[in-house]
């Protein structure tokens, strides 16, 4: 039913989001930028968790790696060009995902969770315990990347609204890319692997290669998010690679609803805004310090009453009578 509307909806949402900087409050614009960045991060993880059936608990590795890549590529008092530093950061993530994927994809289930976590922790300690990225203090990115086209400054990343639009464009691009990929033969094979890996193998699909491609693409897209986050804060430290970060993005995916790209966007919005609200001292006083408690309760409630996440809620509104078993 009204599939035209369903097709148009993402563009309407992007259009509305594009108007957000009219709010004219750098604080809220930055907050929304964070939502967009986390949405990219969550969508990249959803490709693995929701579509390939691989629950990674080390996705922060790629997010953080891209941030550190930017910090290391940026000269001290000069801007680095975004045109090559963003692809380079993505490339580093792709390479790291390819190498780790070759190893972690030999495991399944709980072991996969543990091994992905282990690789992320290894990377955490590489940056934490060596001088490479300023150790536990982290490193500053004093000058944000430049996005020039023949001497003309296309986007000024120092300006909150322009950076917001860049993040929005990249989020839309990520959504579009994943949407296309998942609708392709390749994407169908991934979902097939998630549903019944054994049968896919019996049908002649080289399952490992598909999973590796998915893992690499997922890590690369997480790199976009990590790059943008590093630009936004002008600062990286090992925390961005920590398991807390991996857990947060996994929670966003679950909160939003696994296996729905827009769910990841909704989840990112809910998570970031809720975190902001719950940790507001003016509203919640001493409880604000312990916002994780309230967040935990919220996520438990969603898990209990909305097993398909917030996206499931949206789907219920849209089409009540659709037969069961559509998704698993």
């Amino acid at each position: 039913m009204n599939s035209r509307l369903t097709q148009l909806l993402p563009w309407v949402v992007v259009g509305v989001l594009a108007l957000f900087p009219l709010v004219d409050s750098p604080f809220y614009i930055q907050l929304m930028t964070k939502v967009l960045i986390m949405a990219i991060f969550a969508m990249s993880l959803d490709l693995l968790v929701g579509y390939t059936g691989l629950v990674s608990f080390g996705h922060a590795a790629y997010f953080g790696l891209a941030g550190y890549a930017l910090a290391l590529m940026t000269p001290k008092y000069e801007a680095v060009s975004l045109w090559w530093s963003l692809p380079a950061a993505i490339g580093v993530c792709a390479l790291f995902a390819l190498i780790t994927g070759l190893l972690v994809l030999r495991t399944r289930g709980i072991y996969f969770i543990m091994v992905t976590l282990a690789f992320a922790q290894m990377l955490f300690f590489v940056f934490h315990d060596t001088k490479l990225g300023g150790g536990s203090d982290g490193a500053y990115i004093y000058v944000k990347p430049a996005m020039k086209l023949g001497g003309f400054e296309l986007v000024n990343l120092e300006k909150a609204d322009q950076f917001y639009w860049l993040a929005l464009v990249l989020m839309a691009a990520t959504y579009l890319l994943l949407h296309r990929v998942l609708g392709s033969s390749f994407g169908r094979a991934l979902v097939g692997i998630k549903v019944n890996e054994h049968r896919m193998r019996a049908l002649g699909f080289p399952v490992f290669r598909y999973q590796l491609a998915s893992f690499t693409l997922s890590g690369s897209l997480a790199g976009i998010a990590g790059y943008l986050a590093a630009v936004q804060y002008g600062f990286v430290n090992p925390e961005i690679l920590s398991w807390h970060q991996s857990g947060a993005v996994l929670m966003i995916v679950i909160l939003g609803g696994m296996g729905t790209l827009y769910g990841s966007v909704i989840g990112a919005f809910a998570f970031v805004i809720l975190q902001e609200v719950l940790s507001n001292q003016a509203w919640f006083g001493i409880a604000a310090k312990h916002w994780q408690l309230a967040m935990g309760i919220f996520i438990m409630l969603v898990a209990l009453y909305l097993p398909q996440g917030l996206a499931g809620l949206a789907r219920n509104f849209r089409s009540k009578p659709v037969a069961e078993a559509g998704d698993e």
Partner: protein
Amino acid sequence: MSDKGLPPNPLPKEGGDIGSPGSQAMAGPALGRPGDGAAEPILRIRGLTKRFGGLVAVGNVSLDLHVGEVHVVIGPNGAGKTTLTNLLSGDLPPTSGQVMFEGRDIAGCSADHISRMGIGRSYQKTNIFLPFTVFENCRLAAQSRTPHAFKVFSRAEGYGEINRRATEAMEAAGLAHRAERVAATLSHGEQRQLEIAMCLATQPRVLLLDEPLAGMGPHESQRMVELIKKLTAGHAIMLIEHDMDAVFALAHRLTVMVNGEVLESGTPAEVRSSPAVQLAYLGGEELLHD
């Protein structure tokens, strides 16, 4: 008592119309079957063995599959029939032995590799994509045959050739009218048909069918027997089956396995007249049947 199951036309009971083509099928091999040496078997199994620790699940099994022939493997539960299938399909690596497919030893190759070479299998326990539609199940199976399955940007349904093969497989298995149904909502028999349809959509030359009739009603069974008979022309089929009516309707060659080993192998007539088989297997089975 023993002659009841042994007449040349072994299908006195239900499915009279299976009976006559069945006897034709049996006449085929009797007249001029491609005997050993006459035609190269497409699959030549020699000394295939699988041990699980001290247990010999499959011990020193040798048999040949020829295109145009149904080779039925029977035996009591635990005889190692499904393990044999798993060894041939790559689901399990053999401990020792040879599996020559078109002159190449494929023993120990991965399941996906073996499937791509042209050996398809169906499963005893229905093994399909429950949340997908019947069409998508078959489409995915057909997609596995495209040389460049790694198409990342064009829509999955945009390939006429794949869709056509999926549709053909559904039609062959008698499921075309269920194309848009979600597989989980099919009846047991239809799920078994889907199992075969998916196997066919991969266009195999060798079919390993593991109890395709399990749990089917008489009508569905009969249709499946007809389907397998039709497939015989272009395929080499190894069929594992307990339903004796179907076995004798389809078999060109019959192998009896007991405790992982081949007890007897030959034409159905030869096997039936084997005293060892009568003692060990057919007698017991008949008691079960009546």
